[in-house]
């Protein structure tokens, strides 16, 4: 960087070039970063290194809700090797809070902490152990305050207010200041429809707090620059959103905070919020030295928001012939101490609470609470995941009460193209819900008792309990369950959702080469693979270079909401089209006189040549571009959406819907309450698979995260103290390869005419239906009601 005389840190991302691959869209081309990732050379944010760098350490609150009466940093400051100790008083700007939507999160606690693990002070030192020891020497006097831990304590007459004096844009319409946002949706007449119901089922469901558990811990490197600014290398989901939140609290103009995306070790929503970004910058600016912060796994559990735990109350009715009459629900999401993405989670939970079904008469309410529990925000499928768990349980209850097959019952009520959502929005592209269910049901079942297949001795690896040798087949019962879900794609509710792509086309060493530059966060999903494919398809080149993502180009929006292939893929397509038009214009200027087709025919770029739609070659692209480079940066927007009405919930709030269905086959050791998922078959419509290998990988990964929250994953918060009890990979369990079954995937490609290439965002939908499918299968095996996820052995054994 010109204004920075420092050497570039080790691990700074470089261009990734993929040579000699012809693959355009629709081919399963391989990742351009694959070789770097298998050789250990790919630089993740925790791998960054700079000569003379310091290590940052965060001191976090040990209590959930308290006033800070005193902070004594004197011993910490005096330690050799310590360069800086910062508290709230050291914050340099007037702005001292940040937040995705509501700026309610203090950079460092200001006299009060609202949740366990809230950042209170920062240390920079020359070794991580020195920084830890110094942090441990900071003395903080807490005066504990009463806790808000659930709906009852949040809304009690004497409830402490988590945020006093709210003036955010939701504060005017919420019924209580401890409610972040409330979204009702009323359509039809539930009271009347209820009278037509022959059966009514009710249920109260609980969804546990899930962690994204990405493997690459929060980390990054901030390097102070001579212009008073800072260069920040970090793993995030949305560079420009970070920038908007970082610059004001540093007291710097945005152009002085230059961000580059480092390697991202998974995200799943957990990097949508700021973690160590501001802290590293503050320490770097204070000390004048590069500062690296890397959370360990313990701190990571406090360093990012989690999936909202939820209580869901549902009532459905149906006629004898299996038509759903109405649905009433109330969804209470616990947003924890700070708002994060809670408003959007409320919007999704309410607008998708009906599921992929036709129900004309609904009465829906979703709220998110402020509490002293850990802050919750984005995680894959947010809002829709919690709702799907509940409405799919309801579908099974209704089918059972009607004596109907659960799949046929769902198919009978399945939405389709043209269905009107409870928000009044018409579903205007394919919605093959019944077909997805048909496909997973039609698949042959895996053989029974596979653990016996190998011979006489039971192979415990194929049994519940696995290597722990708890059963050789005793007590093991099989169950099968189905579920289907609906998720929105992209940012909804009137948000100005756009992405930006810069594409440069030029000749290098005699060959035309495209460079694609976006700020899209590649978090593992394979966006970089797809961008190269799109550039090849649109520009007819084989060589595509992917520029590192940074803030030198316009915003790409977040890598979330299943939106990046649609949005930044769409932006790359859009910009490539403009570049192509310019290249053709250039060609016409240079060579137009040689062939009449330049003026008359539809021209394409293919295989490095300008060709007519009839296939006639007019020129080499290299000759067209000789001596000139075409460089374009353009924004791309999806069609606009509307906010939901705050009273009726009506509005065309979503861009696109996406659907997946699962069939789970489980074997349950009913005596010990242990579960082995034998198979999780899935079918999903992706509109158009730009890269089938990546598509299937996304679906299998999402499915497995749904499995995790079905049978093992939960952050356990002590209701008496609001403290997290299991912040480690020893006690927060995620599925191992021995817990994960075969996941056959059936991909449909029914184009959405509104979307680039007809594609449908796909990353989240598999996370929705896999959880309720597993639960349904366990219910089928055990006959138990099971209204809570994750299912624990205690629930299955009644202990």
């Amino acid at each position, binding site marked *: 960087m010109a204004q920075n005389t420092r050497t570039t840190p080790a691990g700074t991302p470089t261009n990734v070039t993929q040579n000699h691959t012809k693959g355009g869209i629709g081919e399963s081309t391989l990742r351009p970063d*694959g070789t770097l990732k*298998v*050789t250990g050379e790919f630089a993740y944010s925790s791998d960054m290194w700079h000569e003379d760098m310091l290590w940052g350490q965060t001191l976090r609150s040990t209590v959930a809700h308290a006033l800070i009466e005193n902070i004594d940093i004197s011993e910490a400051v005096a330690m050799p090797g310590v360069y800086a100790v910062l508290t709230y008083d050291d914050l340099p700007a007037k702005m001292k809070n940040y937040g995705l939507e509501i700026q309610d999160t203090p950079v460092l606690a200001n006299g009060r902490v609202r949740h366990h693990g809230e950042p209170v002070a920062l240390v920079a030192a020359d070794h991580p152990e020195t920084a830890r020891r110094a942090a441990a020497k900071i003395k903080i006097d807490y005066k504990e305050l009463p806790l808000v831990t659930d709906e009852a304590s949040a809304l009690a007459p004497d409830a402490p207010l988590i945020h006093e004096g709210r003036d955010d844009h939701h504060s005017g319409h919420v019924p209580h200041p401890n409610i972040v946002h409330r979204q009702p949706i009323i359509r039809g007449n539930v009271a009347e429809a209820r009278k037509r119901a022959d059966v009514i089922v009710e249920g109260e469901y609980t969804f546990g707090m899930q962690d994204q558990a990405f493997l690459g811990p929060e980390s990054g490197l901030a390097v102070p620059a001579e212009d008073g600014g800072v260069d920040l290398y970090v793993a995030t989901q949305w560079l420009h959103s970070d920038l908007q939140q970082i610059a004001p609290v540093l007291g710097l103009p945005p152009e002085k905070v230059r961000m580059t995306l480092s390697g991202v*070790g998974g995200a*799943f929503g957990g990097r949508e919020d700021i973690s160590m970004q501001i802290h590293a910058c503050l320490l770097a600016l204070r000390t004048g030295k590069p500062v690296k912060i890397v959370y360990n796994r313990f701190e990571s559990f406090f360093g990012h928001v989690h999936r909202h735990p939820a209580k869901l109350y549902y009532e459905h009715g149906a006629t004898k012939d299996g038509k759903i009459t109405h649905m009433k629900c109330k969804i209470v999401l616990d947003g924890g101490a700070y708002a994060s993405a809670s408003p959007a989670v409320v919007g999704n939970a309410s607008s998708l609470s009906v599921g992929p079904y036709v129900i004309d008469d609904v009465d829906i309410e979703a709220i998110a609470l402020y509490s002293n529990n850990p802050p919750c925000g984005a995680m894959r499928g947010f809002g829709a995941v919690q709702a799907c768990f509940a409405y799919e349980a309801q579908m099974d209850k209704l089918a059972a009460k009607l004596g109907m097959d659960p799949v046929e019952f769902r198919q009978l009520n399945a939405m389709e193209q043209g269905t009107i959502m409870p928000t009044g929005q018409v579903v205007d592209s394919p919605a093959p819900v019944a077909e997805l269910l048909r496909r997973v049901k039609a698949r042959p079942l895996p053989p029974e008792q596979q653990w016996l297949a190998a011979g006489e001795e039971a192979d415990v690896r194929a049994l519940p309990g696995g*290597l722990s040798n708890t059963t050789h087949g005793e007590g093991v019962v099989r169950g099968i369950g189905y579920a289907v879900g609906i998720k929105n794609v992209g940012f909804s509710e009137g948000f100005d959702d756009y992405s930006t792509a810069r594409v440069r086309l030029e000749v290098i060493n005699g060959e035309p080469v495209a460079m694609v530059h976006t700020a899209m966060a590649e978090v593992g999903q394979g966006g970089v693979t797809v961008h190269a494919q799109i550039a090849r398809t649109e520009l007819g080149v084989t060589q595509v270079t992917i520029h590192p993502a940074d803030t030198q180009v316009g915003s790409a929006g977040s890598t979330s909401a299943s939106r990046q292939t649609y949005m930044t893929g769409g932006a790359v397509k859009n910009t490539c089209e403009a570049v192509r038009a310019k290249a053709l214009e250039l060609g016409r200027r240079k060579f137009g006189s040689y062939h009449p087709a330049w003026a008359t025919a539809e021209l394409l770029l293919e295989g490095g040549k300008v060709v007519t739609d009839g296939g006639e070659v007019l020129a080499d692209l290299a000759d067209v571009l000789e001596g000139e480079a075409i460089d374009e940066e353009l924004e791309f927007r999806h069609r606009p959406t509307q906010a939901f009405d705050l009273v009726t919930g009506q509005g065309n709030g979503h861009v696109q819907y996406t659907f997946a269905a699962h069939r789970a086959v489980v074997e349950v050791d009913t005596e010990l309450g242990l579960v082995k998922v034998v198979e999780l078959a899935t079918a999903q419509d992706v509109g158009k698979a730009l890269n089938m290998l990546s598509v299937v990988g996304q679906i*299998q990964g999402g499915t497995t995260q749904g499995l995790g929250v079905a049978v093992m994953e939960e952050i356990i918060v002590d209701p008496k103290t609001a403290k997290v009890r299991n912040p480690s990979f020893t006690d927060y369990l995620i599925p191992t390869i021995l817990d994960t079954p075969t996941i056959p995937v059936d991909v449909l490609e029914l184009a959405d005419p509104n979307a680039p290439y007809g594609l449908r965002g796909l990353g989240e939908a598999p996370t929705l239906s896999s959880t309720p499918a597993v639960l349904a299968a366990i219910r089928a095996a055990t006959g138990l009601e099971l209204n809570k996820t994750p299912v624990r052995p205690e629930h299955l054994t009644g202990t």
Partner: protein
Amino acid sequence: MRVNFTVNGRKQEADDVWEGESLLYVLRERMGLPGSKNACEQGECGSCTVRLDGVPVCSCLVAAGQVEGREVVTVEGLADYAAHRTDAHPGGGCASGACGTSIDAAKRWQAKPQDGQTGEAGGLSPIQQAFIDAGAVQCGFCTPGLLVAADELLERNSEPSDADIREALSGNLCRCTGYEKILDAVRLAAARQEEAV
């Protein structure tokens, strides 16, 4: 304290090592070998897996002082390590069933220093190539540890069953893939190894 050991065939010395540092920290922060990953630092995820005298271990749980005088192979040296094995056992397979690399053999092995550090010169090992080809890499954070573990599995068992693969990789968490394509990759590497015999 000072620690001397061999990494990917090259003698290394680290000075001023704090006694509580792990092998993982020394590799990543002192030797410029960040390929071994720091996902949990409690032995629960396997992303820091290296070979210590030939044996796969979590480098986060080995105290730096414990590796004095020992041999470490990291993902950065995996391609060379595998190439050496292929030299020793042409075709890479092992019909005798005794194809594991003994500790002695592992100790004798010396990588060409310039190769071991970058993994560039030696190309990719079969398991590395298979991970790319099978789509087993997404975010890639678990990949280095999985590669070291899977390579060791194929070294001792050239035709692993699915259950064998699952057991051998049960100490390596992956959050992105749902493991299906990791299984594919190991099967693919085993099949290619078989073809090469």
